[in-house]
């Protein structure tokens, strides 16, 4: 089919941050999928809570609070650093971005360690009763996301240190910060359900 | 008109109208039947409209060859018709939704405290029926057959001992699932005397197809006679052959699972056989109650219901003959 040229796009930039980049929308899609998984898992938790008179089941005690609080505090710190790193990624300054990503990997490691203590302080097993099952479900789901994004940041960091950083890679750092924020914001409702639902509901 | 639809359905099918929602014999099925008529009429009306419009559109300006496309179109007339069409749909739906809600409310409101209380527990591929009214000595258990007095509401509590089944006797009422961990209830107020057949309606394993039950609706007197008879223990063996049959029943694996009150065989995990011969069918509605099917079922149940939990109990022909004679005597 014959065509008629009416314009030229070669003058457009070849990278873009946030809303204008494809990868950001792809990550948003996967974040919505995982958010649905968290919402449904939380829904299942509350549904099973509704099915049973006592919560947790009499012999089990609610999970110990300390490890959960440590994790949440570390998460808040990581989110602050994360937002700062996202701003720095836009300035495309190599040194600061490399430093920021290393900082995130460090805090991420601390969160993973405190998560291990959380796993030990659940006071219930997953195969004892439905309460134990759903509590471990929520913690397992979030731990899966935490580990995925921490390993992802580690791999990204290792790449940043061994290559000259192109603008596209800065957008990838920016998008990864977006995903870490999702892991942070999804932790708060899970933290509420796991630690405070047995005490308050 | 109801008569016509029923006859049309029955004429098309064979003689049996004993398992169809189109031949209601109880209040519940009757009310549901009224919704079916309304639905049939309203949906058929809309369908004829759609097909008429489609036929007209297809026939109106048919072309053999491809005409050049028109891009300037003004469909104000069509868009007004669309608005009318949407209005008709909303009207039709409002009618159907409100009618369905009214019937649903009346169905759910048939609380009747002096109803006949029955508990039906579904098991993998048969129904345990317990009449729980009155003092314990007035309570008894039977299997795969329910007797109901005509004109009185029966409140059936539905439970299951293994997987999900669904209690469904279409002539009497809609179906209700039997789910572990839940107690569902269904009310039936039979109006017409007769024998109706129900079937499990939720897939429950190998023999989901052969998990039927019979519901006998009879007059109050017949029902009382039947109930009092069910309360009596099994008849003592009348002849040496019956005695041999009873001995075989107790010696072999039968008494491990089945119960015959009065013959000190007390297995609780399988259907109660105290008044087996008084029922119309055996093996959950699979075979008619007669000597031939009893002998066939006992010799090899896996051939008739592959996967059923009843094993092939090895016994000689004489033992089997005596056992069948004894079971036939358990009227």
């Amino acid at each position, binding site marked *: 089919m014959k065509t008629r040229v009416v314009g030229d796009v070669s003058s457009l930039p070849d990278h873009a941050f946030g809303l204008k980049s494809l990868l950001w929308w792809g990550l948003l899609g996967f974040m919505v999928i995982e958010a649905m998984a968290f919402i449904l898992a939380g829904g299942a938790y509350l549904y099973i809570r509704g099915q049973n008179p006592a919560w947790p089941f009499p012999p089990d005690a609610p999970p110990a609070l300390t490890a959960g609080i440590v994790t949440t505090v570390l998460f808040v710190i990581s989110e602050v650093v994360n937002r700062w790193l996202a701003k720095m990624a836009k300035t495309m300054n190599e040194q600061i971005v490399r430093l920021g990503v290393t900082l995130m990997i460090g805090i991420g490691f601390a969160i993973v360690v405190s998560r291990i203590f959380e796993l030990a302080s659940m006071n219930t097993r997953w195969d004892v009763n439905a309460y134990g099952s759903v509590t471990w479900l929520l913690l397992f789901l979030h731990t899966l996301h935490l580990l995925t994004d921490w390993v992802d940041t580690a791999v990204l960091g290792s790449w940043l240190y061994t290559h000259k950083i192109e603008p596209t890679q800065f957008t990838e750092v920016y998008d990864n910060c977006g995903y870490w924020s999702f892991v942070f914001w999804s932790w708060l409702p899970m933290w509420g359900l796991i630690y405070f639902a047995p005490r308050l509901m | 008109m109801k008569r016509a639809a029923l006859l049309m359905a029955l004429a098309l099918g064979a003689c049996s109208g004993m398992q169809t929602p189109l031949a209601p014999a109880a209040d519940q099925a009757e009310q549901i039947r009224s919704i079916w008529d309304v639905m049939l009429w309203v949906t058929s009306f809309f369908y004829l409209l759609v097909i008429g419009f489609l036929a007209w559109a297809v026939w109106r300006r*048919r072309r053999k060859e491809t005409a050049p496309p028109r891009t300037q179109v003004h469909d104000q007339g069509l868009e007004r018709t669309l608005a009318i069409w949407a209005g008709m749909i909303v009207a039709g739906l409002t009618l159907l939704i409100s009618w369905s809600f009214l019937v649903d409310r009346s169905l759910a409101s048939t609380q009747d405290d002096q109803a006949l209380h029955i508990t039906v527990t579904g098991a993998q591929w048969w129904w345990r029926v317990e009449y729980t009214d009155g003092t314990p000595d007035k309570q008894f258990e039977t299997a795969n057959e329910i007797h109901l007095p005509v004109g009185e509401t029966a409140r059936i509590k539905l439970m299951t001992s293994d997987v999900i089944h669904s209690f469904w006797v279409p002539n009497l009422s809609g179906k209700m699932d039997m789910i572990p961990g839940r107690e569902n209830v269904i009310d039936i107020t039979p109006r017409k005397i007769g024998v109706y057949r129900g079937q499990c309606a939720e897939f429950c394993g190998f023999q989901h197809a052969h998990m039927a039950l019979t519901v006998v609706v009879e007059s109050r007197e017949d029902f009382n006679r039947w109930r009092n008879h069910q309360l009596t223990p099994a008849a003592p063996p009348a002849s040496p052959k019956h005695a041999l049959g009873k001995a075989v029943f107790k010696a072999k694996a039968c008494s491990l699972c089945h119960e015959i009150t009065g013959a000190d065989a007390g297995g609780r995990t399988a259907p109660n056989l105290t008044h087996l011969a008084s029922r119309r069918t055996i093996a959950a509605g699979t075979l008619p109650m007669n000597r031939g099917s009893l002998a066939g079922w006992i010799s090899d149940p896996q051939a008739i219901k592959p996967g059923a939990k009843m094993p092939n109990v090895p016994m000689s022909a004489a033992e089997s003959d005596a056992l069948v004679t004894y079971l036939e005597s358990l009227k």
Partner: protein
Amino acid sequence: MSRPPKKPTPGRKKPAARKPATAKATSAETDEAKTASAAIAKPVLEPAALEELKETWKDAPGLWGWLTTVDHKRIARRYIVTAFIFFLLAGLAAVAMRLQLSRPENDLISPARYNEIFTMHGTTMMFIFAVPILEAVAIYLVPLMVGARALAFPRLNAFSYFVYLAGALLLWVGFILNIGPDVGWFAYTPLSGPEYSPGHRTDVWAQMITFTEIAALSVAVNIACTILRMRAPGMTLSRMPLFVWVHLVVSIMTILALPAVMLASSLLMSDRLLGTHFYNAAEGGSHLLYQHLFWFFGHPEVYIIFLPGVAFVSMIVPTFARRPIVGYIPMVLSQAAIGFLSFGLWVHHMFATGLPRLGDSFYTAASMAIALPSGVQIFCWIATIWSGRPVFRTPLLWAVGFVITFVIGGLTGVMVASVPLDLQLHDTYFVVAHFHYVLIGGAVFPLFGAFAYWFPKFTGRMLSERLGAWQFWLFFIGFNVAFFPMHILGLLGMPRRVYTYPSGMGWEPYNQIATLGGVILFLSISLFIFNVFKSLSSGAKADDNPWDASTLEWSTPSPPPPYNFHHTPVVDSREPLWEHREDLPVMEGLATKKREVLVTSASEAHPDNRQSSPDPSIWPFISALAVSGVLIGTIFSEWAFVWGLIPLTFALSAWFWPKRPRAGKSGEPH
């Protein structure tokens, strides 16, 4: 980009003033407008640039090329062929069921084997045929219809095919090795739970769900991003073809609905393998939790299957009625309404479980409300035919067949939406008839229409009209002969999923008629296969636009080159090819030396930036292998999940490892 000023080209009637596309003029556009008006229609097709473009977008030859390709057309074609093969297998399973049910107390198939066969039929049709094949057609057409060179995430698309293939093979190889599932396509607990479903049969089913859902979700994200961010300049939301609108709605529904079934099947697997108690009523779990989670996905799923059928019909009817669709806005609104409403009515699958009756009647109202948007759509199609000059080729035959069949299914759907009536009709053959009318009528009829319509574009050959008509009539008659009697069977009290039935119930004649219908359907589909192979070898050559249709995919040669468009088309109306019969406006400037795609804004489709599109890579295939290893290993030992993550992390890291664009080529535009 403001619309280029229209030069009244001689010899063509001046197009009537259409709603002027008001576009914000930014500084970058004003100078382009100046250059455009000065630009004479210079010869656009420099052979050198074309050669270079073909070289950049070429795949490696042979098997290595097959494994590493990221061309959305190649992946879509193999998706369609694979899904169609499993459609034939599931069809054979259906014929086997019909033969077993043709006579009462038939012992052709044992109950255990029959339960496996009907589970394989249902599971394959829903998870391995319907959703994948409809998404595959979208994968092929969406980039072409929106004027893009490739999908947003080409490697994710390759990954999704291999994961889908692994899931389909897991199920069918399991069936051949006699580990096939036998608890129905929705596997209610406790029958599918650890106590009543021994062995790994249900684990194979549950893990297959995880495979196909990962694939479907990846495709959904891919299509949604392509539609939102890569439309041709000027293709505002109100100028998108209805096909693209539907697949935007379907992708969002898929993203919101599929996690529910992944959660339901994963919790079932953990109940069976790890000993958790999600569905163990004795330890606080609940069987209704499984049903809620499953049907929260289940009902959107059947609309995810039906809406692409709407998309096909919405493209076929205007082309053959020779005029644009009647009521574009009502059509878009009703698609969105169906998508939104489908999440609010899943409980109508659970009316018989004894939930509170007042809640049920809310779901009755919601279920019946769906009849309004679909009623509007039906009206718009018929009105388009009514006010057009219809030409009856095979695609339009299928569209008319769709309307006749689907409306019956829709109306029986309204019937079973009423709580009391559903208590009589639920889980009977009436419901079997309903969902076959809605799924075969709603998706398979339009799918065959789409095959006939886009086959020339996919393969460059025309399907034979005579064979097409024969196939349609055989399918239409066979379908109604097979499935209409099932309405009566349901009304005569025959429950669903029974491997046999007693004689004397009045069911024999209808079952025999249904079996006869099944055989006719079998003939029709073999005729279709014969038609396809005959056309592939000796069919008439198809030019770019055999049906003189109006959307962008018909502006590319048949079959389209790997890069789809040399220059990105500019759109200024809903029917680009009918507006610009011979001089399609395009914008040049995308690189030819490296793979590049144009990213435009979401609502007004202003060009934003150019992004490099990934080159062919083996890592999606290896990542799919790693995912399959993890998931299949988990069936046999839960430690496989822990140790399997290591190779998976390695594969994914290698996939996302940013690679230098080919040395010396980055930067220059041409």
